């Protein structure tokens, strides 16, 4: 059987794979280094915080898979791959886990304020993730895709700033809301980049910035959880 074509490496798939691998490793380290704290505290915030990074790891795995597919089939759009719906299914899984990761992180910030309605809100987030994924694979419109991504971003930023405003009176002020905002913005750019054909340089810039945000969160988690 022939190996992967040489243009796979030339189109930056090698870089994409290394980048995704580092982000997946960061996410899994965040997930596992908070395991003991969650087991001891059973704190809902910690639970959904760590689960959101597990979902990010899954989403990034599928993102790198999409990049390999794009390079392999020599197309610039995942929906142009017609191999038994392979492109659509992969995109659906990527969008579902990606949206859910964002919603889980928002939920981890808000769950204590939503006590009592938590199951309904979580159900709404699942429903939204499925709906967004369906819209994306069925419309095949870049405008709809960007609009949907911005809708996820709006929910995420709304969640962050509501929580931050309520926590303002606490003695110690955390700058984590800025890191969350950057995480969400670069995640949305990562999503858009899958369907919209950006220049290679722009893709690298998004990747490096996302990597920086994940490393910053990992550093904070390791420092605060006493795992370093």
């Amino acid at each position, binding site marked *: 059987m022939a190996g992967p074509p040489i243009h796979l490496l030339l189109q930056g798939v090698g870089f994409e794979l290394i980048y995704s691998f580092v982000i997946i490793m960061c996410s899994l380290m965040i997930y596992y280094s*908070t395991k*003991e*704290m969650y087991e*001891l*505290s*059973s*704190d809902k*915030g*910690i639970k959904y*915080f760590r689960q959101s990074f597990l979902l990010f790891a899954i989403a990034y795995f599928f993102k790198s898979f999409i990049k390999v597919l794009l390079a392999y089939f020599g197309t610039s759009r995942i929906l142009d791959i017609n191999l038994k719906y392979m492109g659509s299914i992969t995109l659906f899984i990527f969008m579902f886990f990606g949206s859910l990761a964002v919603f889980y992180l928002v939920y*981890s*910030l808000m769950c*204590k304020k939503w006590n009592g309605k938590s199951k309904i809100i979580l159900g709404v987030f699942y429903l939204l993730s499925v709906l967004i994924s369906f819209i994306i694979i069925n419309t095949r419109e870049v405008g709809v895709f960007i609009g949907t991504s911005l809708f996820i971003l709006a929910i995420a930023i709304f969640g962050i700033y509501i*929580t*931050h405003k309520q*926590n303002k009176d*606490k003695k*110690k002020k*955390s700058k*984590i*809301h800025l890191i969350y905002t950057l995480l969400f913005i670069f995640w949305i750019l990562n999503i858009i980049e899958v369907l919209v054909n950006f220049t290679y340089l722009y893709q690298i810039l998004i990747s490096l910035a996302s990597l920086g945000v994940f490393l910053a969160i990992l550093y*904070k*988690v390791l420092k*605060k*959880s*006493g795992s370093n």
Partner: protein
Amino acid sequence: MKKRGRLEIIKDILKIIQENRNSIRQTPLLRKANMSSSKFKEYFRELLEKGFVKETKGNSGEKTVTLTQKGFDFLERYKTIVSFIDEFEL
């Protein structure tokens, strides 16, 4: 007075047991915990279920509450957990 959160209440109950040479009966524990009987029962059940405390029969046949290793671990990690929750605004 500021209302205590769930983790703080658990820490307070475990701390009372620890400061009582790791052995205390339920009634004085309830009194020192400074909470309603129904709330205390709720928390006490959770502590037993999570394996933070265990009930043992003393020489006099009275049931006493003691901390398990997991209970000691919680007390040791309490500040880290709270600081983590604060830092990430969870």
